[in-house]
């Protein structure tokens, strides 16, 4: 998809030479995100939803909860199914059709981030072991792609999950009973993802915009949760030196709390919100 570089050689050179002097084309600090804007609960037909803008990159995540069969290796757990669509609205480089390798990579990075941290308490979503469990469908829709849709997707995903309400239920002798009341989905953690990029010879930045993404050869994303645990890494483009690997992990761990604070504030986890 990104085989054609839509960025000119001139812009690319300028971005790299500015970075070497410690500045960015949009005047941000190297480790600063663009403005982040959040709207939760836009989609009333979804169980949960959140739209996140980072600069003009815009991602909408929606959650639907249904009933299905558990995986045979964890028969007593609900199912989390993450899907991502790079819909062609978002970029001239995106084409209609089933998810390509980039969309699949996005979905799988978010999936791992949520799954490995046990962010959703899937055990509490079992109805009848081995037969029926709740299935949490998380659908990620990238609507406008101005770079770094992974971090925006991670934020929209966790916010949509925190926004999700399901009918309170009880299991009475194998019978599923719903009550009138709606309750939150059991969400136990708030992992976020930090994407870093750098030119072959120059410093790391976080949250590359599209021009930066296309100009910088090396890119990696790292997920970190509120306990400071590293819960997913994916080298995306290019390469890192062995020392740089430690550097990106360190930057990610330092940056995560700022994003987690946004999640907590926007989702009402913090009392002061």
């Amino acid at each position, binding site marked *: 998809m990104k085989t054609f570089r839509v960025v000119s050689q001139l812009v690319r050179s300028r971005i790299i030479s500015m970075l070497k002097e410690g500045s960015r084309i949009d005047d941000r600090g190297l480790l600063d995100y663009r403005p982040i804007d959040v709207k939760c609960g836009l989609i009333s037909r*979804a169980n949960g939803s959140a739209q996140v803008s980072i600069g003009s990159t815009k991602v909408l995540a929606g*959650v*639907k909860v249904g009933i299905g069969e558990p995986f045979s290796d964890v028969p007593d757990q609900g199912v989390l199914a993450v*899907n991502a669509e790079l819909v*062609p609205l978002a970029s001239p480089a995106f084409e209609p059709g089933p998810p390509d390798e980039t969309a699949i990579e996005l979905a799988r990075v978010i999936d791992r981030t949520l799954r490995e941290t046990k962010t959703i308490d899937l055990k509490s979503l079992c109805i009848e072991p081995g037969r029926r469990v709740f299935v949490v469908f998380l659908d990620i829709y990238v609507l406008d792609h101005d770079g770094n849709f992974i971090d925006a997707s991670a934020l929209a995903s966790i916010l949509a999950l925190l926004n999700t309400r399901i009918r309170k239920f009880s299991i009475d002798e194998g019978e599923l009973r719903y009550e009138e009341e709606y309750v939150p989905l059991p969400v136990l953690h708030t992992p976020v993802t930090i994407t870093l990029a750098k030119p072959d010879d120059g410093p790391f930045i976080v949250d590359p915009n599209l021009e930066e993404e296309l100009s910088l050869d090396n890119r990696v994303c790292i997920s970190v949760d509120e306990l400071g645990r590293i819960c997913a890494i994916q080298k995306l483009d290019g390469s890192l030196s062995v020392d740089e690997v430690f550097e990106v992990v360190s930057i990610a761990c330092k940056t995560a709390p700022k994003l987690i604070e946004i999640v907590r504030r926007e989702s009402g986890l913090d009392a002061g919100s």
Partner: protein
Amino acid sequence: MSSEFVRPDGRLPDQLRPIKMAVGVLDRADGSAYVEQGNTKVIVAVYGPRELHPRHKASPEAAVVRCRYHMAPFSTRERKSPNPSRREVELSKVIKDALSQTIFLERFPRTSIDVFIEVLEADGGTRCASINACSLALANAGIPIRDLISAVAVGKYNGHIILDLNDEEDEAAEADMPVAIMPSFNKVVLLQLNGVLTEEEFKQAFDLAVKGCMEINRIQRETLRSRYLSIKGEENEDV
């Protein structure tokens, strides 16, 4: 029309749902628009005119309109598979046919004009809201059009002819008839009937649809003038 008949959501038979429209809502697209009609929410992006691949699909005489009407998996009551359904394929076609009537296609030979519709929430009337958003997005993209197309559905519900059905009404309706017109030319560019009507009921319904389209057209024009419009002071934010 029996003005005493009140609909499930309290509307009169000839009353539109609250409408919200905005243009230029996306940065990468050449043109874009967002439309809400009641709970129905649609976002549209237009790209083009641009080179068409593969080339043998291009026309030496005119631009080709390509249109994808697509529903987000979370937009419907039950989760919808992201794979295009037969309904989505049909709606993509009839919307494409409608838009092709208003664009000066002959000015852009060998190119495509690509219209991408995402239904973010579906509460009835999604194809009409899509057409309303497409019109705005084409205008926003600066693509020369003959007229701003406006669309709305009419139907027969409990024996009454009503305007702008929501999903609850649609499911129980005896008939559902989406209509799109180019008001300045008095042209009907989309017309479908799903249901059963007598010739008399058809006339009554069609007249109501034309009136509804005129009202929507007025709002579209205001939106383009102000680039943003919120009717009836809804609290919901736009996308």
